[in-house]
């Protein structure tokens, strides 16, 4: 039943599996159980998925209550298509290790960039978080 034609509402998404991207870069996958007018979400059987290259790892998190303002986007997961993925699932330890390595590499290249710019007399302030106001 179409509750409100011509409008966007999360009512139809209740009890379906969703992928939620948060402002801090985390990816959560879980069943959407409850919403409210601010798009605060209650996710059930949530899993935090970490992607590094072509590999990914799932950390089970249980029940999540997400404040609406922290959501970048969310979308329903097609359960049939979920399994046809080119990505390779690995264990949690492995993915965390991969993530750490990736973070280190990124920090290193960033450091070199800043140094090179400094040498040329340019000073670029570092964005510490993803949130920029």
């Amino acid at each position: 039943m179409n509750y409100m034609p011509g409008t966007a509402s999360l009512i139809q998404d209740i009890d379906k599996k969703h992928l939620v991207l948060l402002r801090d870069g985390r990816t959560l996958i879980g069943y959407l159980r409850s919403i409210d007018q601010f798009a605060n979400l209650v996710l059930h059987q949530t899993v935090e998925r970490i992607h590094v290259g072509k590999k990914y790892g799932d950390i089970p998190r249980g029940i999540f209550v997400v404040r609406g303002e922290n959501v970048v986007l969310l979308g329903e997961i097609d359960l049939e298509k979920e399994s046809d993925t080119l990505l390779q699932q690995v264990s949690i330890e492995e993915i965390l290790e991969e993530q750490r390595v990736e973070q280190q590499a990124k920090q290193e290249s960033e450091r070199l960039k800043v140094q090179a710019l400094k040498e040329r007399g340019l000073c670029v302030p570092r964005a510490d978080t993803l949130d920029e106001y």
Partner: protein
Amino acid sequence: MTSKEKDWVIKVEMIQLQSENMDDDYYYQMYYHRLEQRQAEEELLGWRNRQEPPKLVTPFIQKVETYNSVVRIAGSLGQVAVSTCYSPRRAIDAVHHALVEEVGEGRLCWQLFLQLLEVEEMQRKMSLAAEEQEQKSQEAERIYQALKIRACSSEEEAEDEFLQLLCVQKGKKLTARLLPHLSPEQAEKILLTITHHLPFLMKKDVLDESLPLLYSPLNKVVGRMTFSKLIEVLQEMSRPLPESPELPITMALKNQFGISLLYSLLSHGEKLLSSDTPLEPCSGDFETWTDVVFLVARELSQVPKASLVEPLFLPSNLLSLFCRYLDKQTVHHLEAKME
């Protein structure tokens, strides 16, 4: 999520959709712009213009911003600290205003009820000495006076305090419990008032359905009435109403209390007539009596059985009453109706 929760969320979202200014609303403008474009395209392509997409009709929920200087939370035992964005700290009301909120009739009812309880308490004391009896009847008299009964008043029903009291369930209970303690004249006056305003009371009782409370005490009052008084009461019921084509009797037949009272009156009349006691009627009483009996019989036969309500009590002498005035066929017809 339960459907109630979902409905709530939808309602809140609908309220958010309400926009005072449609011209400045980007989303509104864009949506309808695109909709029209799409429909124009489809028409061009030769498709039959699809039935209009379901239009969103938002329930117009009035957003009223009221500021209550003192907030009283129902059921709380006093002042509860309330703070909102309008006032971090609400004013605290030092004076207790509980009684002010009660409805006018409610207060009166309540006070009279307390007095009535006193009267009944006195009644319960087994050995009532003469002075105590006197005291009891004085108390009852006081309550009666407080009720300010104006029998057969032609005033607006809204202004009659006693009637307003009777509209409330508590008022009916009060009157029902008071009746046994009143003198016969006072009780008959109450009966007369009730019968005079019967259509009004029946209409007001649709939700509560508490008029039957009064049946039992009124039945006892009827049982003690003289023939002339009975005729007076019956006349009230057969008097045509200015605003309605229906007679009070006809309306009473469709109401449980009404029909029970009517049957009770007729039964008492029949009992008086068939007994040996002298009646001392006033002139015209017998004619009125016969008229009423015929009227009731006529209305009973005309009202469809589906609209007739079962009375609280069906007196056994009604059929013999009808037998005396009507032919066998009609009596059988009425018998079937009354079953």
